[in-house]
């Protein structure tokens, strides 16, 4: 996509403009709080306090952030290829099936350090498989990937309801979920890390080693996109499919491989709640994390160094949102959904809203920074 706008210094492009967009999103969210009749500043205070005020809060914040790092990376990888994978939700949901099968088979046999890598592979494989069909249809049949991945979200949801209610539910149980996993499928918690830092975290806090896997994946995605030949092909295709074709890059191959990676990353998200916290597969365990990934990727500008902080910010909103709902009953956790939407709107669809203004300011104040000799069109 070519931008019909003049160049700005890098720090403005990657720092100032996203920051301005984010601030505007939060100001509008503040207006909604005001509309409900609460004080937005007090709300923000409770939110931050709830997320970072205690060791327990931080552990929960990072636990939620783990989910969003995985799904954010998934969306970002596809973005680099010019594809919009809106199906992270479904890919993660159905990947729960892969995790479930490995865990149900091995939890009483193997220790966690054998179960975990196998479950990771299973989650990635199932997630990738769920992305494969839309990818194939996009590459070979030209069907729009946004539509097919949305459809696959719904198909995944129906399939998982069927499987959990009719197949995986243990006999005699009423709740539509698998049986509780034994110790061999429970991931070690990371609360002690925070304890060592002088914070108090109860053993119940769900932060677990899936967080480290998420960070490792962030590094891996960075290396893949900017340090490998495949990454170069992905970016080339995303920047200009025509140029990529001219350079002899196989369209089908790039699209399918990118979507497989994207689906695998989204699938790995299932590990965190299933093996790290719930120790079973329940209905709707993804609970929107796949969609949060879109906001995270847009906010992080599809770069792992931006995605990790963006994921932590959304983790903060999730954890702090729980505290907020407790203190201000008028504001439920659905406030986060609004903020998420506003972030997607201002950091994504309206990312150029303030650009002309900022450009004018820079062009008047310091023409050189914009790369123009003074006096030319800004």
């Amino acid at each position, binding site marked *: 996509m070519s931008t*019909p706008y003049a160049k700005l210094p890098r720090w403005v492009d990657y720092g100032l403009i996203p920051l301005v967009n984010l601030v505007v999103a939060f100001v509008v969210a503040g207006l909604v709080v005001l509309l409900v009749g609460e004080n937005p500043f007090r709300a923000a205070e409770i939110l931050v306090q709830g997320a970072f005020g205690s060791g327990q809060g931080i552990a929960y914040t990072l636990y939620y952030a783990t989910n969003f790092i995985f799904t954010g990376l998934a969306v970002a990888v596809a973005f680099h290829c010019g594809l919009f994978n809106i199906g992270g939700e479904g890919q993660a949901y159905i990947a729960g099936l892969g995790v479930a099968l490995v865990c149900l088979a091995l939890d009483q046999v193997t220790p966690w350090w054998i179960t975990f890598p196998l479950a990771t592979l299973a989650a990635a494989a199932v997630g990738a498989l769920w992305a494969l069909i839309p990818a194939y249809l996009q590459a070979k049949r030209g069907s*729009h990937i946004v539509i097919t991945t949305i*459809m696959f979200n719904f198909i995944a949801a129906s399939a998982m309801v069927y499987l959990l209610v009719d197949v995986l539910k243990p006999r005699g149980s009423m709740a539509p979920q698998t049986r509780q996993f034994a110790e061999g499928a429970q991931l070690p918690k990371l609360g002690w890390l925070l304890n060592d830092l002088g914070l108090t975290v109860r053993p119940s806090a769900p932060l677990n080693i899936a967080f480290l896997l998420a960070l490792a994946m962030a590094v891996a995605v960075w290396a893949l996109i900017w340090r490998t030949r495949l990454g170069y092909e992905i970016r080339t295709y995303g920047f200009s499919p025509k140029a990529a074709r001219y350079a002899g890059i196989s369209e089908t191959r790039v699209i399918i491989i990118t979507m497989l990676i994207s689906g695998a990353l989204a699938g790995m998200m299932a590990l965190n709640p299933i093996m790290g916290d719930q120790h079973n597969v329940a209905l709707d365990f993804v609970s929107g994390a796949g969609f949060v990934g879109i906001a995270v990727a847009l906010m992080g500008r599809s770069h792992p160094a931006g995605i990790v902080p963006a994921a932590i910010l959304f983790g903060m909103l999730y954890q702090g949102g729980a505290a907020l709902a407790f203190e201000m009953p008028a504001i439920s956790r*659905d*406030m986060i959904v*609004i903020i998420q*939407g506003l972030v*997607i709107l201002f950091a994504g*669809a*309206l990312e150029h809203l303030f650009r002309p203004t900022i450009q004018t300011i820079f062009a008047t104040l310091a023409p050189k920074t914009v790369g123009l000799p003074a006096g030319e069109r800004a």
Partner: protein
Amino acid sequence: MEFVDALVNILNSTIRLSVPLLLACLAGLYSERAGIFDIGLEGKMLVGAIARASAAAVSGSAWIGLAAAILVAVFFGLVHGFASITHRGNQIVSGVAINFIAAGSTIILGQAWFNQGGRTPSLPPEARFGAITLPFADTLRDVPIIGHLYSGLLSGHSLLAYIAFLAVPFTWWALFRTRFGLRLRAVGENPAAVDTAGISVAWLRYRAVICTGVLTGIAGSYMALSQNAGFVKDMTAGRGYIALAALIFAKWKPVPAMFACLLFGFLDALSIRLQGTPLPVIGKVPVQFMQALPYILTVILLAGFIGKAIPPRAGGVPYVKER
């Protein structure tokens, strides 16, 4: 006779269930024919639904409620237009954003205004559009088959249901028999040509987005106060996406859109009716499969196995003058 009754019954609920789909589908048609993809049908239906229910609850008038629904849905449509026409943002991203803002704000505001766990108060019939009995429906009720179909199936729906089905020929006429329609379709296929002819691409597309807002507002209204007695959180439950699927299924044409919506409505009605009962040949079909069928059918269609769905050529691409 029992069979006819059951059939009329199921077809009747088919019509009821397909009305919001049809309105949303036609809404998407205007927008997408003008080259603006709209994932945000779902969100606009949702805000329309709560606006209708709240305004009707406060004012007690069905018409004020409908006007509020249309206004709010048009406002959200204009936000989409502002992002994707004026600022040339990504239309998919903007649509996704609108869906989230709608999903969150309807719950928060519904709870804040009425304190009933995100639902609006149940409204008396005066604040809703009652069922319209077509002429002679009562006298013809006992005539076999024809009478059944007429009085059991065609009569007795809400005003908005009749509007929805009348909107089909109207949309066809507006799109294929008027100057506005010709230009609307042209702007979705080749905006540069429209621009060269001296017609504003942006203004045309804005008008399309407003049409979308009006129709999604009516769709939300229907869901809130004709299918139900008030707004319930997340009440659209993915219908905006089914409408999108129907739009693709119908290859962006109004009359096929009606049949696609009736088909998906029929599947919905069937899945409600057949819950747990085994079918003669296939045996017991999981409800979830029936619910997923519209999506599966759409994917198969998109794969090119049931004809080919070719979207408007300039769909999703922001128009930049004089690149």
